[in-house]
């Protein structure tokens, strides 16, 4: 069952049968909003990028983004850069896979962010969402819609953090500005 998350909401990442999750995927999908005007069909291409920053006790240790597709330890993998978004299929355009069991023991938080690399604000983006899927069976655990279309170019989506023996996900949904995750670091730190 999908939970439509709201800002600040936290859910425990557990299977519906109570077992702990072993692998999750954070999927990101979007479409460029059609431009109004004479050549309305000419949508500008929008390149959103999903990144994951791995923290150990509030210090960034590793980052997975389109120029570093696999974390050094191999537990977090980016499936590759998508430069234009979806054509309306509604599927994931970029995805980051996290093998929760293989995440190094000192990593306690993984923050997922979305940036507009081409510089358009989220006003020009349509049907953008971020969702967390149980990778073992494809079941959607949570979905968070990036609506609101504000004048910002980045969003700190969610964080997955250790809670007890398992993991918990918190929807952050915090708007920010920046081209890549580096620009977002000051905005991420308060959420740790």
């Amino acid at each position, binding site marked *: 069952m999908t939970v439509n998350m709201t800002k600040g909401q936290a859910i425990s990442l557990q299977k519906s049968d109570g077992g702990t999750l072993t692998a999750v995927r954070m999927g990101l999908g979007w479409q460029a909003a059609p431009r109004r005007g004479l050549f309305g069909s000419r949508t500008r291409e929008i390149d959103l990028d999903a990144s994951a920053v791995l923290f*150990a*006790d509030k*210090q960034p*240790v*590793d980052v997975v983004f389109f*120029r*570093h*597709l*696999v974390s*050094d*330890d*191999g*537990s977090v993998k980016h*499936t*590759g850069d998508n430069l234009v978004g979806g054509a309306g299929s509604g599927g994931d355009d970029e995805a980051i896979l996290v093998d929760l069991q*293989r995440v*190094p*023991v*000192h990593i306690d938080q993984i923050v997922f962010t979305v940036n507009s690399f081409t*510089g358009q604000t989220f006003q020009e983006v349509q049907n953008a969402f971020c969702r967390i899927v149980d990778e073992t069976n494809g079941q959607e655990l949570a979905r968070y819609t990036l609506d609101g279309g504000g004048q910002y170019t980045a969003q700190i989506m969610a964080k997955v953090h250790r809670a007890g023996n398992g993991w918990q996900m918190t929807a952050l949904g915090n708007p920010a500005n920046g*081209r*890549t995750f580096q620009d977002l670091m000051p905005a991420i730190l308060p959420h740790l």
Partner: protein
Amino acid sequence: MTAELVRGQNHTLPQTRLEIRVSAGTPVVAGATLGDENGTVRGTEWIAHPGSPQLPGLEVSRQAAADHRLAVDLDALPGPVHRVTVLLALPTGVGGPVRFGAVASPFVAVTGLDGTEIATFTLTGLDSESAVTALELYRRQGAWKVRAVGQGYAGGLDAMLADQGVPGAAELAHSIQDAVTRATARSVAPPPPRTPGADRVAPGAGAPGPVPPPDGHRPAPQPPEPIAEPATPPPGATTGGPINYAHPRRQSTAPPPPPPTAPPAEPGRPAQPVAGDATGWSMDERLYNQIWGMFEDLARTTAAYRSAVDFAESRMGQELDRTLSDPRSRIGGAGDRAREEARAKRDELTTRAREALDRDLAQLVAEAAVVEPALPAAFAGWDNPVWHAYRVPMEIPMALRIGDLHLPENPALHIPLLVRLPLERGMWIDSGRTTSDAAALMDSARLRSLAMECAVAHAARLLAVYPADEFSVHVIDPAGSAAGALAPLVRSGALAGPPASGAGGVASVLAHLTRRVDLVQMAIRAGAADSLPPDVDTGEQLLIVNDFPHGFDDRSVTQLRYLADEGPSVGVHLMMVADREDASAYGPVLDPLWRSLLRVTPVADDHLADPWVGHAWTYEPPRMPPGSRVLEQVLAKVAAARRPRRP
């Protein structure tokens, strides 16, 4: 408010201390030239580039990178300077893209020191250009302005510098690129892109080797050399010919035999490992991919462990510092308690990291235990029984094991180091004293003879895994000093001819191979492979050179360098058994030669880096079991298979 400039647009700069940020999808060289009021660049000292990165008021990065930050202080520039031109170029000679049209549009931003963007410019619409003038900062009536230029040059850096009227533009461009190549080769190759869908990537070759320092002296610690991953031919490399719809690495379209399936795991325990548990169209390819998968897994699990331990140590360090600087902790037992706690936290995290590592290592050890016995001869060590049942093969295998790799966390877990066949680069068996402990304990004569024995064993493996008459080995041993080590090769008759000695022998072998390279190259270029003279052996050739540069005159050295450059593409490879110190008199001219070869050692040495995280792996050459006669037996079979075809 950021100004997004378009080509030709200008913008007034509110301050004189600036940063220029460059981001491109691929490593680029960034530089800047200074011009006076007429736009003239007054000399090479008015150009900041990786070879000379600092000018008064201007600093650029020393190497090619996807992101740059150039620091500019316009007030500190020499008085006559009226213009600063920021330029970007693609590095040549490192195997990257050669035109801006093939990469993402570079983006430049002029920012204040606090990072606020003043003006940005995306350089769109570039095509065959390999160098581009990005921005111009210029003085107009006492105020500085920035203009977006975006003028590209298909002729590259030298065309651009020549256009600015720089004297000696070509030499300067060359020296800039040279400085960049040197800086690039020193760093470890970036992790290769993963093929979508395939979890485990097939490796090949093509990364730069270790770089000699410019003065030709041995560097104290050699930087680990990246183990090459596949150089996928760029799309569009086949332009002009008909499109080949076949998958580049797929040999046949017949469905592959079903992969071995692992028996279902008992609940709560990891699955039993099975040999060949990877993707591939044949058992050999599956084993090959499995070995590279194990290599990557070991690299990554070790990276996780080391990162956790480093973190635990640094956190403990910080906590101890805090305790030390807190005056309250000096009274009573509070300080001791805090120290105890910090240590306990460190130990707890380290223990958990070690548990995770041990769990993964146990899995990999179990996998290695089933994979090793299943390996075909080309992938197997000399101690594998498969070598006793050796038969001369009918086909070239996809790879050859040239040694083992291990990490200090578990020295017993060996990963076979496989190189693709046909060889993509030659080998250099370093007979010099390296920084490794094993080499330091040995006297240099013993090291030299060990290196030659290694070379013979490598050559024997190559001879054995090629079909008869598709691989020949030539030997240059100018002083005859390696006769003992070469005896098994000579006795078996598997060599193309007796080892060449003396200056005359060196010259004749080199002349023979140079002619072979020239003729085959010409035939390939002309598309007339069947018109080669009948005495040209089109099989792969390996030239073992011992005692270099003894017996070599300048002409022979030039020929050897030619073979190293041109040989690999037409199947002529070098195996140098040499100490670079011996050839130091030649200075840096030989640097490209050493760099083009895969350096291995006759004793264990940690000089190889993996392509994913860049650990230093300890390389060990293949060990011959003591008293084993397997080398002689294999060589005898190789020689027997060749004889009937010889006239």
